[in-house]
């Protein structure tokens, strides 16, 4: 294999790697369950909880 051909192939492999990194195929998917997240009692947690609180307040008023 010539060096020029290798450089083209290396660039293609690098681009493929970046696409894999972007799509998240290189790792296990992040958890979607809020109960499994690392939270302390004083932190608000996921933003969807704030939305739920806002909805509750609106419904009460």
């Amino acid at each position, binding site marked *: 294999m010539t060096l020029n051909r*290798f450089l083209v192939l290396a660039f293609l*492999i690098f681009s493929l790697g970046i696409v894999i990194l972007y799509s998240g195929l290189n790792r296990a998917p992040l958890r979607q369950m809020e109960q499994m*997240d690392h*939270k302390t009692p004083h932190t608000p947690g996921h933003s969807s909880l704030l939305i739920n609180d806002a909805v509750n307040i609106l419904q009460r008023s």
Partner: protein
Amino acid sequence: MNYYKILSWVALIISITLLILPRIIPICNGHTGSGAPMLCHYAYQAEFIITLLAVILSASLFVLRTAEARLLASFVVFLLGIIVIIVPQPWAIGICENGACLKTTFFETIGGSILAITGLLIALLTHKTQSGEVT
């Protein structure tokens, strides 16, 4: 097959293993209190890019013909092996304190050490061969 080819194959295999290691031994995949991914996520995203470069450079050892080019490529493989070890350290990017990523980092450190040693051996071998040709 000479020593150069054997060491180049070792570097390539180790690089590919390091690239796919977080799929074989997964890191922890939870979120922090604020909902963002944890430090280990970012550390292993960085590790992926570094090992991708290590794969390309290790493969280039089979294509390069001049001693100087081989010396440079193997030296960069040596440096990348050191970077692989450094990235999960707390003073670099870091990982979480008691997650599954500790196990991944253990094997990543062993792999990074082997990669660095292999890169150094190839560089020394190439330098020795080059010196032998000159004298």
